[in-house]
Structures are given as C-alpha cells and as structure tokens.
C-alpha cells in the first residue's frame, strides 16, 4: 500500500512544478488519545488511524472532512506537535525520529492556526509575535537584523511598518490572520500546515487571504497542507484533495477530478451538500442525503467506518475494513464497492 501511495502521489500531479520528489511522506500515521472511562480504566480514542500520503514539493494538498474527522489532529501530529502513536513522517527523504530531527524539522515546517483571535498572545506586540520564532531558533545576529527581518515579513503579508508596535486586539480578523502568517513565515519554512486559515474571515477578506497564500507560494516556493471544511475554497487552492472520515482517509485525488467525479460514497454526499452560489444550479441540484450523524470515534463501527450511513452499504462493509488502494492512476479510494457503484 505504501509503495502504491508513493507512486500514486507522483503520478497524480496536475501541476508541472510538482514533478519533484515528495517533500513530506506520511506513512501509517496514527494518533490515539487516552480517554479515561473510570478510575483505573481508559480507552484509546483513535483520532487519526493509519493514514498515508505524500506531499510533493510546491504542491498544495487539501485535506477536507467534517468536524471530528481528525483533519486538524492529522496536521498537528504530522508536525509532531503531538507525539504520534504510530507511523512515520519523512521530510526530504529522511525520517523524523530524534529530538534534534524534530527541532530541525520545526525550522522548515510551520503552522497557521484557524482562530486569529486566540492564536495571538494579547500581551505581545505584533513585532514580538512575529519575532518569537526568530528568538527561539536564534536566527539573527543583531537587534537591527531582527528588526529588519520582522519588517520584511510584515511587508510580505501586506502589513505596514507602523503596525509593528501595536497589539493584536487593535487589528481586524483578516489583519490578525496576516500576523499569524508572517509568524509562520519567520523561520523561512518550506512547508506550512494551514489549519482552516480562512474560515473565521468574511467573504471579501477571505479572498484577499487566499490570494496572498497563492502569491507567497509562488514567491517563496512553499508547500502547503491546506486543512479546511469549505470545499469551494479547498478546490480553488489545492492541486490534490484528500478526504477524511472518522480518522481514516477515504479518498485522495486531483482537485478537479474529485469534485467532478467523486468515487467514494462519502465524498459524493459531501460534494452534493455544498451550497452552490448560483440559484439555477442550486435549484436543479440533487442532494445525496446521509442518514444519521457521524459516529463517536470512541465507538467507531467495525469494518468500513462509513457503513452506518452509506446508502450503498453491503454486508461486507460491516465485516472488513476496505483497503485504501489506487483504483486509477493517482486516485486512491477506500471502498469495497468502488466498481459496483460507479
């Protein structure tokens, strides 16, 4: 499966720039949290359960799914913000194992958080927020150099130098998110995990920030893992899209492919549920209704995690876990019935 995964990643590219080797390889990543169920007993909550994918250099991989599906945990555990329960993360062909690996990796891989209000320290000025990663990694020789770097970063994200001495509460949501992005860029990273970076913003501001992500990518040769639940935004910014459900990856394919011709029943339902901002299309749109709600990851169903809500479910679906396999070039689906239902 791993080999398939690697190969598939390489072939599924739409962008010519991305024909390079994978920058990040995730192999069988698992992240369990222990939930206490009594005085002495605890049970693992499988937030991320055995996911594998590659991210090519210069690529944007979109990661979508509903709340509680493990997409944020996947991003965090990839960056080793949590100690993964199992699996491996490779950066530029080298596994991240020891503490010094992690430290080196953190200079190259950073994160932009969802909530621009709680992810910035209210007691720090903007220049200290952006300068903190520089302090932590000792990335300047003099105070003058630090100041220059901070001002350069601020100009990259469209903030004025006069904003440097202000506090986060003096800014609007969109500007705060710019501060968060400048902080992520401070260490000159190759790879940024963007965890719902535009969901808290108004539509008109959202477009500004999305454009900025794209410009920065071209200018600084960045690779993104773009986590979001807004499928229209993800489709716009991503080269490939991965869909998660209940801690598992159910489908991975080229962004336009997955949107125009989803193969997994969950992806089909998800895409049909997106409200299209066009009255004529919206009226004609036939939604695939899903019965019930997403099960608790503490009592994940046996077999395919989606079988309890799947309109096509067969006996086999509740018995065995479908393999996440390549069904077409660069297209991965975890479903027993891919051929029957498509």
């Amino acid at each position, binding site marked *: 499966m791993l080999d398939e995964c690697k190969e598939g990643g390489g072939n599924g590219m739409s962008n010519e720039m991305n024909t390079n080797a994978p920058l990040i390889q995730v192999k069988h990543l698992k992240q369990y949290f222990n939930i206490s169920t009594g005085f002495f007993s605890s049970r693992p909550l499988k937030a991320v359960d055995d996911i594998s994918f590659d991210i090519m250099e210069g690529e944007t991989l979109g990661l979508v799914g509903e709340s509680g599906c493990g997409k944020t945990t996947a991003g965090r555990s990839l960056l080793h913000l949590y100690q993964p329960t199992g699996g491996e993360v490779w950066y530029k062909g080298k596994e991240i194992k020891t503490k010094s690996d992690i430290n080196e990796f953190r200079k190259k891989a950073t994160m932009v958080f969802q909530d621009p209000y709680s992810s910035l320290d209210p007691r720090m000025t903007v220049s200290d927020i952006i300068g903190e990663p520089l302090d932590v990694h000792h990335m300047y020789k003099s105070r003058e150099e630090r100041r220059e770097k901070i001002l350069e970063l601020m100009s990259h994200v469209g903030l004025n130098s006069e904003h440097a001495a202000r506090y986060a509460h003096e800014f609007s949501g969109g500007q705060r998110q710019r501060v968060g992005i400048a902080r992520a860029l401070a260490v000159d990273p190759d790879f940024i995990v963007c965890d719902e970076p535009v969901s808290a913003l108004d539509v008109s501001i959202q477009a500004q920030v999305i454009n900025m992500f794209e410009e920065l990518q071209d200018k600084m040769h960045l690779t993104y893992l773009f986590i979001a639940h807004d499928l229209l935004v993800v489709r716009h910014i991503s080269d490939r899209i991965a869909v998660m459900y209940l801690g598992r990856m159910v489908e991975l394919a080229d962004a336009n492919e997955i949107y125009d011709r989803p193969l997994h029943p969950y992806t089909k339902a998800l895409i049909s*549920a*997106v409200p299209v901002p066009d009255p004529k299309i*919206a009226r004609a749109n036939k939604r695939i209704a899903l019965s019930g709600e997403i099960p608790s990851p503490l009592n994940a169903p046996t077999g395919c995690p989606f079988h309890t809500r799947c309109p096509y479910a067969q006996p086999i679906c509740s018995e065995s876990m479908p393999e996440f396999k390549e069904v077409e070039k660069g297209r991965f689906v975890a479903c027993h019935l891919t051929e029957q239902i498509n």
Partner: protein
Amino acid sequence: MALLEVNDLHTSFFTDAGEVRAVNGVSFNLERGKVLGIVGESGSGKSVTAYSIMQILAGTGKIVSGSIKFDGQELVSAGEKVMKDIRGNKISIIFQDPMTSLNPTYTIGHQLMEAIMLHTDRDKKQAWDRAVEMLKLVNVNSPEKRMKQYPYEFSGGMRQRVMIAMALACEPDILIADEPTTALDVTIQAGILELMKDIQKEIGMAIIMITHDLGVVAQLCDEVIVMYAGGVCEQGTADEIFYNPCHEYTKGLIRSIPTTSNDGEKLEPISGTPIDLLNMPAGCPFAPRCDAAMKICIREKCERMVINEDHQSACWMNVKKAVETV
C-alpha cells in the same frame, strides 16, 4: 398589504465611544409564505435588523426611528406587552449557536413544553403531545425518548432541529433564522436547509434568512437584501441579484467567492477592510473600498433607485450607466 413592512428603520447602540449606527435606513416588505435572505458581512447590521423586529436588542441598543408593521399593526411603539404576544407566537427566531441557545439544566421536553404552554392554552398532556409531534416534524428519531434527554445528549445538528421545533411549535407567521447553519458541517447544513424548505412549504410561513453565505441564499431564498454598513445596497429577487447585480459591493462579493467558473484564476477580492461604524463617511459607505468610486460617491450618499420591478439598488454607477446608454 404585506405581512411585514419595515420602513426606514434606524437602530443605534449608545456606547461610551459614541453612537454606533448599526442599522441605517432599512426598508423592505415581506409577503406571506416567501423566503427573504439578508446577506452581508459581520457588522453589516443584518442581525441587528432582525433583533429590532423582535425588539430583543441589548441594553444599549435602541430603535431610533422608523416603523415596523406586522399584519398592519405598528410594533415600534407597541410596548412590551404586545411584543410578548408577538414573540414566539407570531414571529419566532432561531439563533446561530445551537450549543448556547438551549438551557443545559432542563430536558428538551421541558423546554419545548414551556414554549408551547406559554403561548397556547394547552394543558401539560396536550403540550407533551404537541412537542412530540414537533420533534417528529423536524425528523428527530424516537421523539418520546429524546423528550426526556438533556441538551448535552444531542449533537449540534440535532440541537438546531430542536430549536426549529421550538420556534415552530406555535405556528408563527414568520420565522427569523439568524445564521442557523453557520456552526454546522456541510452535510448537516444541507439537511437543516432542506428541512426548513419542506416545513415552509407545508406550513406556509414566511422566513427571513440571515446569512453571510451566498450559497445558502441561492438555495433557499426567493428575495434577497444585500446589506453593508447598516444600509441596504441592493434588493431584489434571487435571480436578479445573482445574474444582474447592480451594486459594486454585490458584484465584488460574487466575484470573491471561488466557484467552478473562476477556477484556476486568481480571485478578485474587495480591497480594504470593513468600515468603522463610529466614523461613517458622508457619501456611500462602500466608496472607500470601491474600485469604481467616482467623486459623487464620496460626496453624496446614493438613494435607492428602481432598476426594474423586481430590483432596487443604491449605487451611482447605475446613473452613470443610464447616462452612457442614452
């Protein structure tokens, strides 16, 4: 006569920093059985418009002038006693956050029955039956069992269904939905929107749908009001607003959402940041962010103009266009 007539409504909040004019001359009519969408960004005054209709403004907020007529009856000067009879009975509201709208210390059944018994003369037994019936209407499974459960035992989508059941229990003429699906996942959102559409057809009530999501508007609404900085930019039928936008702000909003047609291209965002309601400019409030702004836009506010019988807009560009075509 329309079911609800709002005429030149002005609502302000009197804060230490000064008067914040949250709603600045909003007028619209809502016909029986229609779905009206109010779209706008945060701070555009869409929620305050709804709260003004219900008169549930925060302590510092006040309706400064204007009139709100429900079924011919003036509400602004009507007083609390009349409003108590209107709220929940004739006009109901559901809020964005289903997590905080329910009381965590009472069962769902208790809260539903409270609403029913307050507005009708049903006894406890009848109220229970009505509550179960309402839960069935909003597709909550095994309603008798669910009645005895507490809000924490419900998921977000289920809580929002309970809120809808509560709002509809007294068969109101108008349901105001203030961003009812913003906190929910897409598949759950689709279910709730479909449910609202079905019930609306069945009961025939009117809905005021407040949202920032143009996708939701496209799916549900017959008519649309676009708000910016407390005022109405444009209003008309959904088709007119989406296919023939006549205000630069509406055009900007539509351009800035990623869709299938602008895929692969750069998005065209609206530049600048939303306006500070404490320092409103003299002219069009959108002029500082408008790429097409002319001298008159900065100097003078544009009054509402009739584009056609289904469409009105307050943008000087319409005058320019008209002059050019003559």
